[in-house]
């Protein structure tokens, strides 16, 4: 943005004085509310979440009851709006119910990893020195394991079950978030305004809260949302080997796996669970990108 300025009187463009009462976050949300992409993504995500929550009310049939005679019906078949799967169960019903498990396995581990990994990374980046060394070297150790292997090992050791799977996924997702947080914090930390805040006598936590967080959250959010789809896919992998959701529980990743044999006969149906994962993760990604640019006051 270019503003014509003269030294004595400042930018010629007038800013209405009413803006003074607006806080930073209020400004962020008002900018977000004007962003069409952000509104669209919010609508889609809200619809998917509501559909999953109220699946028993809106689903046309039972997710676990099927008939072998009606297997792999195409999209639009009477009684099967989105076709049927390899066991003759209604796809629409299973996609609605499947959202419950998949949204949980996508969002919960990423949210937990964001809080823990973001906190550790910011702390390591801001403090530097030996705190940084301890946090980052530990992260490197975990990072050295392939993520799938790590997730399998942890949930295998803890035993099957949803909670253990979520825990395993969280642990796997923490290291990359720590890395990102640490590197953006290190960049912000070296800027003079952080130095000036220290010179005003503020403590580290106050400086992180007031000066650092606003400048690092954007990139960390954007990166974390890209992990949502990773988390859903990893969860489906765990389910596939019997460490997560168990059939016949509907779950997008598990469905994608089960339907892969039908890819030649009913490609559209086989792709449907993947489309859902794609829509959810893309919506989150676009939404966080909008959030990042709404947080940037220099637009």
């Amino acid at each position, binding site marked *: 943005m270019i503003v014509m300025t003269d030294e004595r009187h400042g930018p010629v463009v007038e800013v209405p004085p009413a803006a003074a009462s607006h806080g930073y976050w209020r400004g962020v949300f008002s900018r977000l509310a004007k962003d069409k992409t952000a509104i669209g993504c919010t609508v889609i995500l809200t619809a998917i979440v509501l559909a999953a929550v109220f699946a028993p009310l809106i689903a046309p049939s039972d997710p676990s009851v099927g008939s072998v005679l009606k297997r792999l019906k195409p999209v639009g078949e009477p009684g099967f709006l989105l076709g049927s799967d390899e066991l003759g169960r209604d796809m629409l019903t299973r996609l609605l119910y499947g959202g419950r498990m998949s949204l949980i396995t996508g969002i919960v581990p990423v949210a937990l990893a964001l809080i823990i990994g973001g906190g550790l990374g910011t702390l390591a980046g801001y403090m530097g020195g030996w705190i940084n060394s301890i946090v980052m070297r530990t992260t490197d150790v975990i990072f050295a394991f392939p993520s799938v292997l790590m997730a399998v090992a942890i949930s295998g050791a803890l035993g099957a079950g949803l909670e253990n799977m979520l825990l395993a996924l969280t642990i796997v997702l923490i290291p990359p978030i720590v890395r990102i947080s640490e590197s953006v914090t290190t960049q912000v930390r070296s800027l*003079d305004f952080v*130095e*000036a805040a220290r*010179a005003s*006598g503020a403590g580290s936590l106050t400086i992180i809260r007031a000066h650092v967080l*606003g400048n690092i959250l954007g990139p960390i959010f954007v990166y974390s949302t890209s992990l949502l789809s990773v988390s859903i896919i990893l969860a489906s992998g765990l389910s596939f080997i019997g460490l997560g959701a168990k059939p016949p529980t509907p779950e997008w990743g598990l469905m994608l796996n089960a339907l892969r044999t039908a890819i030649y006969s009913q490609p559209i149906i086989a792709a449907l669970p993947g489309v859902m994962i794609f829509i959810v993760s893309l919506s989150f990604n676009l939404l966080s990108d909008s959030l990042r640019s709404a947080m940037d006051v*220099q637009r």
Partner: protein
Amino acid sequence: MINPSIEAHGVPFLETTDLRKHFVSGGGLLSGKPRVVQAVSNISFHVDQGTTLGVVGESGCGKSTTARLLMGLIERDSGAVRIEGKDIGGPQGLDIKEARRQMQMVFQDSFASLNPRMTIETSIMFGPRVHKVSKSEARRRAHSLLDRVGLQPERFAARYPHELSGGQRQRVNIARALALEPRMLLLDEAVSALDKSVEAQVLNLLLDLKDEFGLTYLFISHDLNVVQYISDRVMVMYLGKVMEIGPVEDIYNTPSHPYTQALLKAMPSMDPTQRTESAPITGDPPSPINPPSGCRFHTRCPHAEDVCQLLEPQLTVTRPEHFVGCHMADIDSGHSKAGNG
């Protein structure tokens, strides 16, 4: 050694003795011998209440490190900093938070020193809020300071830093520094990045503020004209050492140290008859990683003799309040020109 900070003046506002900071890098498991950058080596000086000490020197001579040491932004290896005789961080002295309330700093980069996501009002209010000033009082203070530095609060308070010009941003930084009602400002190249006309305005603002609030300044700059204009006393630094310190007219009219003489000769003159025909000193200063032995300036000094390589000169008083770190100023040093100049 005569310590220039011990003078018959009563207690100076700010005083340092043997301030030292050596940065160590490397020295890890595989990187071999650590490299020690001798950024600031045992410097002592004082600034009297209500006066301005100008600090000049080439890049890398330790000017900014000195300011950051005084603020406690980097930890000093040794030495003491005292405000009105009270040690900062000492047992019966001031704690660092109180010291930072009394001393504030303005940085060179006006843009980087303001949080890009904070309105300037919030930036100015931050310091007072940290020191438990109520929100309304902090806002009132911010508005009156904005007004004082020449920015109408009703138009500028809600702006973000990128919406202001460099000069306006530096005014905001000055207001921010003053928001804690400090008694001293450390101005680290505070006007160096500004256009000449804006620089003059900000300098005059600084002079006005000094009178109005009874401030004491430490003014760091590489611009000798600006330092001459604003300072009462001047300290010349070279490779982390004080070369010469004294009253401004004294330093500018009759510099005693060869380095100061060279610096002043390098100053472009407005008088066409006073041309600078050849560069008084050439090349870059030696690296502070392995500074020269003895007098650190001997590698570039036109008067260097054996004694300069062997012995480090101590600050010697030549005229009242004028101290020079050169063997030629010390009659007993053994330098052939000692006592003449």
